[in-house]
C-alpha cells in the first residue's frame, strides 16, 4: 500500500502540490485524473523518487521512501513521454534493463508477441514510431511482475487494436492482485477500467471514490460529463 501525507512541492514560485493526502490501500486500478497542470505527473514522480517533495511523507508498504532506492524493485513505471537512449536497439534495451534490475530470468517474448513487436526488435529506438515506442515501454513496465504498476498516460500513441490489448493486460494484472495507478485523459478508458478515481485540482485531492459516486455527485450519466461538470463548477466557484 502507498500512503501519502501532506505532500507539498514547489517549482520555484509555482506551487504544484499543495498538501496531498492519499491512501492507496487495496489492490485494483486507481485512476488519477485532473486538468493539465494539476500535478498528476509530479505526484507520480514523487512516488518514484524522481521529484523530491518540499515537505510531506510517502510510505510504501509501511516504509518511508525518502532517499531510498530499493523499493523501486516493486514498481514498474511507464513514463508519459517515452524517451530512450537513441542508439540502442530494442533487444539491447530490454537486455540492459534486465541487467540493471538484476532480474535476467523474466521472459519478454509473450509481451513481444502480443504487442506485435517481433519485426522491430533489431531496429534502433530512434527509428521507431511513437506508438511502437510506447509498446516497448509497456513491455518494460509489465515485464518484471512488480506489485505496483504506474502508468502515466499509457494510451498515448496507441491505435485502437493496441488499446484493446492494453486494456486486457491491465485487467490481467488486476486479476493477479497488483496495484495499478494510471493517469489518462480518455474518460471511456478510465471509466471501464478503474476501480477508484482520484481527482486532483490545483494541487489538492478534490475527489476520491468510484466512478459511480462521482457521477451521482455531479448528477451526470457518464464520466466525461461528470468531470467536465466538476471543472466548470470550480471555474465559476
Amino acid at each position, binding site marked *: 500500500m502507498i500512503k501519502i501525507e501532506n505532500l507539498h512541492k514547489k517549482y520555484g514560485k509555482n506551487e504544484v502540490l499543495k498538501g496531498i493526502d492519499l491512501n492507496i490501500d487495496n489492490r485494483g486500478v486507481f485512476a488519477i485524473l485532473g486538468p493539465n497542470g494539476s500535478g498528476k505527473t509530479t505526484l507520480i514522480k514523487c512516488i518514484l523518487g*524522481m521529484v523530491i517533495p518540499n515537505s510531506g511523507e510517502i510510505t510504501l508498504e509501511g516504509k518511508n521512501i525518502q532517499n531510498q*532506492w530499493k523499493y523501486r*524493485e516493486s514498481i514498474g513505471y511507464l*513514463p508519459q513521454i517515452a*524517451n530512450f537512449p537513441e*542508439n540502442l536497439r530494442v533487444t539491447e534495451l530490454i537486455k540492459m*534493463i534486465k*541487467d*540493471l*534490475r538484476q532480474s535476467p530470468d523474466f521472459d519478454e517474448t509473450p509481451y513481444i508477441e502480443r504487442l506485435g513487436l517481433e519485426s522491430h526488435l533489431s531496429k534502433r529506438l530512434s527509428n521507431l514510431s511513437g506508438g511502437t515506442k510506447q509498446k516497448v515501454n509497456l513491455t518494460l513496465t509489465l515485464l518484471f511482475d512488480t506489485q505496483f504498476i504506474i502508468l502515466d498516460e499509457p494510451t498515448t500513441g496507441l491505435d485502437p487494436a493496441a488499446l484493446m490489448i492494453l486494456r486486457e493486460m491491465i485487467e490481467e494484472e488486476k486479476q493477479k492482485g497488483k496495484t495499478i495507478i494510471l493517469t489518462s485523459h480518455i474518460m471511456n478508458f478510465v471509466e471501464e477500467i478503474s476501480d477508484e478515481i482520484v481527482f486532483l485540482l490545483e494541487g489538492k485531492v478534490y475527489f476520491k471514490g468510484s466512478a459511480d459516486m462521482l457521477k451521482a455527485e455531479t448528477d451526470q450519466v457518464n464520466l466525461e460529463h461528470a468531470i467536465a461538470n466538476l471543472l466548470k463548477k470550480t471555474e465559476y466557484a
Partner: protein
Amino acid sequence: MLKILKYSFFDLIRSRWSYVYLFFYLLLGVVLLFLNPSLSKAILTLMNVIIMLVPLIGTIFGVMYYYNSKEFTELLLALPVKRSSIFLGQYLGVAISLSLSLVLGLGIPFIIYGLFQSGAIWEFGQLLLLGTFLSFIFSGLSYNIALSNDNRIKGFGYAILVWLLMAVIYDGAFLIALNMFSDYPLDKFALIASLFNPIDLSRVMMLLKLDISALLGYTGALFKKFFGSNWGSLIAFAILIVWTIIPIFILRIKSARKDF
C-alpha cells in the same frame, strides 16, 4: 554503479567523437616525433598542447554527455538504482574514456618510437598522469555545470567560460597582479595563486620535471625550491587530487536534490 559505468563507457567508446579524439592524439604524437628528433623536446611541445586542449575537450565532453544522455538518466531514475550511482557512473564513464583516448593516442606512437629505451619515460609518464588528472577535473566541473543548468545553451556557455577562466584569463590576471604589485614581495602570493588553478599547477609541475624552470622567470627559483623537493611534489599532487574530488563531492550533493 559499476553497471552504469559499464554502459556509459561502452556507449561513449562506440561514439564517433571518441575515435576522433583518439586519432587526433595519434596524429599529434606521430607528427611531433617526426619533426622533433629529440624526445624531450617533443614532450615539451606536447605539454603545451595538453595543458590547453585536455581541459577544453574534458569540458565539452562533460557537458555534451550529460545533455545527450538525459533520456537514459531519466530511464535509470525510475529503476531500483541508487541516485548517486547513476551520476557517478556516468561521470566516471566520461572521464575514463577521455583519459583512455589520451593515454592510448599518445602512448602508442611514443612506444613505437622507443620510449622504453630512453630516459624520458618519467617525464612522459608524468605528462600522461597530469593529462588524466585534467580530464577528470574538467569533465567533472562541466558535468556539474550541466547538471545545474537545464538550458543547454547556458550550460555550454558557463562550462566554456570556466575553461577560458582557468586556461587564459587566470594567467593574464595573475601577470597583471604581479606587475602592479611588483614593489611588494610576491613569492608566496604567486605560489599560492598557482595552486588554485589546476592548469597552472600542472604546467609548473611539468616544467620543473623537465628541468627548464628558467622558463618560469621571476618566481622560478621559489617554485623550484617548493615543488622541486619531494614534499613539494607530494603537496602539488595532493592538491590535484583535491581538485578531482571536489567536483565528485558537489555532484553527489547536487544530484541528490535535483528534480527530474
